[in-house]
């Protein structure tokens, strides 16, 4: 009820303001104060919004200040006493590429958005306002519409299922976020991997997979590298989101993870003559030998042994 009264009062104020607007001014901009009477909810909370700083920036021109920086010049809208079609940039009516253009007018200067035009999200028409809510954000810091994981799960339901498994990275618990590993604004093409996939994965310190941002002991460099890790990355053996298997492995037991590659076939491997099989002393009929990492403890790389024994 209170809101209705406020809005009604606002519309009346708009009319009054429109009537008071000096006709002599040629500028199509009305200033943010012109928006305040009809949009009190947005105006009252706008000082919390990161975009509020545009209203107090020294030397900012009117097209870069406050409401009109995003929504465009508002004098016609005020003169018409409202209506979405009179707003130059009414985001709910805009096409995805128009939304992108409007936001990138200011936000293109950040290099982590340099690939946004060619990102998978943009190709799927997932643009800024698909995830960010400027006036009703779920987080004050980056204006996401909700908690980051919930925003991402909204489309990536399979990823939500992966994070519901017993072994997982702690995203649901709040220790990590999707953007620790992914850049939703697009990334450069792959580094040591040849393929196009997985997409939107950010790189770490040495342009390796983002896993090394946290798992610093696995980064190396080592005297003896496990080449698969360096060439095609951690998901050669691990499922990074979640798994029913311990240590996020792709298989329930370790020896099949190892043997599926170490089968001596073809021209695979760093020596291009097949990845070596284990020696004849490894009797796989004996369960003792099925725990490969009991002896080969340094499978991510070793400084002491080329077979990763220590």
């Amino acid at each position, binding site marked *: 009820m209170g809101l209705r009264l406020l809005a009604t009062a606002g519309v009346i104020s708009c009319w009054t303001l429109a009537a008071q607007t000096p006709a002599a001014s040629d500028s199509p901009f009305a200033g943010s104060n012109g928006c305040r009477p009809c949009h009190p909810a947005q105006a009252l909370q706008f000082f919390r919004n990161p975009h509020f700083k545009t209203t107090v920036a020294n030397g900012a021109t009117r097209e870069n200040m406050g409401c009109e920086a995003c929504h465009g010049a508002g004098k016609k809208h005020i003169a018409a006493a409202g209506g979405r079609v009179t707003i130059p940039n009414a985001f709910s009516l805009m096409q995805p590429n128009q939304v992108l253009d409007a936001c990138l007018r200011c936000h293109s200067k950040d290099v982590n958005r340099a690939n946004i035009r060619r990102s998978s999200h943009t190709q799927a028409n997932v643009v800024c306002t698909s995830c960010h809510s400027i006036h009703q954000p779920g987080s004050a810091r980056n204006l996401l519409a909700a908690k980051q994981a919930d925003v991402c799960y909204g489309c990536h339901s399979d990823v939500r299922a992966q994070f519901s498994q017993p072994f997982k990275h702690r995203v649901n618990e709040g220790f990590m976020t999707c953007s620790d590993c992914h850049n939703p604004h697009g990334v450069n093409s792959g580094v040591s991997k040849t393929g196009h996939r997985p997409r939107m994965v950010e790189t770490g310190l040495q342009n390796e997979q983002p896993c090394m941002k946290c798992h610093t002991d696995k980064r190396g460099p080592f005297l003896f*590298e496990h080449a698969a890790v360096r060439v095609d990355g951690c998901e050669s053996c691990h499922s990074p989101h979640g798994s029913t298997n311990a240590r996020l492995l792709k298989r329930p037991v370790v020896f099949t993870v190892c043997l599926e590659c170490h089968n001596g076939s073809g021209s695979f491997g760093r020596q291009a003559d097949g990845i070596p099989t284990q020696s004849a002393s490894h009797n796989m009929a004996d369960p003792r030998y099925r725990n490969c990492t009991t002896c080969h403890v340094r499978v991510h790389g070793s*400084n002491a042994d080329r077979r990763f024994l220590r």
Partner: protein
Amino acid sequence: MRALLIVLATVVAHAQPVVAPTPQTAGSPRGDNAGPYNITNSWEVGYRFRDVDGNTGKYRSDVNFGNGVRLLGGTLGVTSRDGKGKWLDELLLDVRGLGNDPYQFSSFRVQKNALYRYDLLWRSNEYFNPALPIAGGDHFLSTNRQMQDHDLTLLPQSKLKFRVGYSRNTQGGPGLWTGQWFDGRGDEYSYFANIRRNQDEYRLGGDLQIGRVKLSITRGWELFKDDTNFNRDMLTPGANTTDRNTLSLLRRDEPLHGKTPYWRAHLLAELSKQFTIHGRFTHSDGRRDFIYDEFARGTDRLGAGRNRQTLLTGAGRRPVTTGHATLTWIPNNKVTVANQTGFHQTRMEGDGKYSEINNGSAGIAFAQFQFLGIRNISNTSEASWQPVKQAGVFGSYHYAERRIRSNEQEDFEIPRGTVPIEQINRNKAGIFGARLTPVAPLRILFSAEVGRNDRPFYPTGDKNYEAYTARASWRQKKFDLSTDFKSFNNANSTSLYVHSSTGRTWGATTGFTPRANVRIDAGYNYLHLDTLTGLAYFADFELVESNRSYYVSNLHALHAGVQAQVRKKVDLYAGFVRTQDRGDGRSAAPDMQPLFTAAQVFPISYASPLARVSLQVRANLRANFGWQYYDYAEKFASAQNYAAHTGYVSVSYSF
């Protein structure tokens, strides 16, 4: 207004898989004015409890919430109302789980418009993992990892800004390792590790904008130390009690210290509204120096007394250089064309001197050397066309050529003039997709990727692969429904062995808001994976080449949640999450003879219902109660099964 904001906050929150902290906050979302500032805050303090029946170690590995008093959550916001605060215009603090939760988090931001912005992110994780399937549980870890990131930006809104940053990542705690001594056919022993690792990173950089050209440069230094030491001071017979191999004393120190200085530079030039050039260059120069000093004493498998001292010194080096150049052309508002060329080069090289003195031989000394070089050049061309508002198409072509050179030696002298083995891998992939919006609430997306890799690096890598994605969603204010399908097929074959992988996921989620104070969410996902891979291994000294590794996972995941607000005073939530891997449907454990004939499956179920009540006692005080149950069950064994009741009682207060 306040009621509206509360309802919005309630409705936006989706099903929450962890029961605490309570999403509802105390106090007015509009805050209170204090001088030129507006302040909002809410602090939730409470007691967590748990009761575990079954394998506590596995519970701690999966969940790990314990008993005790916690600052479950807290927010503080101080904002200047006119944007002209004297020292600061905004201060934001968020905390979660402080006290003794296994997952603790704190973020802090303080900024003065146009002058500075400082961000801090601090996180702590108590990691506990007995991991029974790995080395029989002897690779146990109970470590604490703490990470902190500090970033200070000066003149954040100007065309010339400066950045300073510092990050720290520490890991410490006890662990168990395993190894073999004195004989390659001897016994395996577990030994203790006192893990002490830390990484420090310092960053210095700046951004400059001149006209339509933006330049960003960062110089950084990463310093890493691993001072983990290992020991075992008691006589035990090892895992195999039938032989006479023993280890009575082990002492090992292997300090590893290193530095990775790096440069990063970005150049973004918006030459016109239609044409943009983006360039990125990075170079890092990683190095790790190591010493490995070990003394071991015991008996070999024949019972003879043995002692061995090993000393190894050396260094690993890895310079990495990358470059990307992207051209983007937007001729009109319907077409976007982009092309990116990428270059990546990694050289990994290291050398070490190994010496060993033992009572079984006169002593061994030799040098080790390795080189692994990866150079990858890729080019991706992409285009997107939106001829009408309701429909658009996109496509891309990706080509990559990777050269791998490798040389690995153990010799009595560092080999000189050896020629590394070289291979070239080429990948070609094409993507085509379409997006449709026939009516405003309905969005449909389809994309297909077909890739061919002429020489994958390993047998389970992508070779001939196809990936399909389809997604449809219907979103309105009160009702949303989305469904998605993904399929990934890969066939990697050589003359003798074949690896094939088929993965499919299908899911549907829905949300319904019948009234402003009620929200219902539900979803179901099916994740299927089956892989078939050729194997070669020895069994009783016979080479077996006829078996396959066949892995099947059929995972069903269900979630549902209902949240409601009663008389603007009571917030209720009830939810349910269940994950079940049905394997291939069998009801008994697979026969392991012959070794890999039977499909590998790992059927489990993992369910977690939860309920929460949050009661507004006063405008600035809430009382909260929650319960969450975890039930983990493996179908073929029960050693790791557990059932756990967890919950909390808390108050949220705003001053």
